[in-house]
């Protein structure tokens, strides 16, 4: 099971998935990201520090959110993946597209 906490501060939404981002959780993440963008916030940081597992459907949800955020004039960035979750980005060559940031607060600084 997963918890998806969302906080918004100064125009940037921070999403914190706590638990496993698997096929069931990915549907929830897709909806949460869509709701944020529909609600008018297009700059999103997904903080993966407490995400213990990521599969291809979770990755698909992140990519869907990235595309929607960019279409709305913003961006989606990921921060603080664990080494295990990072291997999924590396194995799928998505580490170039979703370049992980070391810090949530400065994810949109550069």
């Amino acid at each position, binding site marked *: 099971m997963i918890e998806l906490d969302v906080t918004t501060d100064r125009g940037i939404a921070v999403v914190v998935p706590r638990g496993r981002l698997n*096929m*069931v959780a990915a549907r929830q993440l897709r909806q949460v990201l869509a709701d944020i963008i529909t609600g008018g916030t297009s700059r999103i940081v997904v903080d993966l520090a407490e995400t213990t597992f990521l599969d*291809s*459907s979770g990755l698909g949800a992140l990519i869907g959110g990235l*595309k929607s955020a960019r279409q709305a004039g913003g961006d989606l960035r990921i921060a603080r993946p664990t080494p295990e979750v990072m291997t*999924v980005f590396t*194995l799928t060559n*998505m580490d170039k*597209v979703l370049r992980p940031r070391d810090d949530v607060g400065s994810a949109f600084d550069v």
Partner: protein
Amino acid sequence: MSETRPDGDADGTALRLDLPAAPEALDDVHDQLDLVWERHDDVSVADRFRFLTAVMEILGNVAEHAYRPDVRAPQRRLELVVTVTADELVATISDNGVPVSLDLSTVTMPDEDAESGRGLALALAALDDLDYERSGDRNRWRLQCVRRD
């Protein structure tokens, strides 16, 4: 620990589950594999994770693609068997779905903006070997991770 099975069955069988072929079963499998690692704590974190990744992708693939829409949920079943030896981690997944028309040698990672279609490619990247065969009226997948660490 509630498990009573001793470490290292003679044939290395660490887990045998009969499951619904549904996305909702994935968390159960994940929990059960966590218990396997408790019994086999010499398996490295890196090996556990790539094995887990591949098992989840193939189970997800079966749940999403192996059944015609008119097959009701209670009829969709799969069996997962995991063996752990000093050299390798192996999972066999068999399901009662329709035959898979797929050449694994042609599976590639989709374009970077694709939102789906990475599952089998990710499983192949995580594993040392992935085999599929149709055996009687069942699909049978065999996933192998050679232990590295």
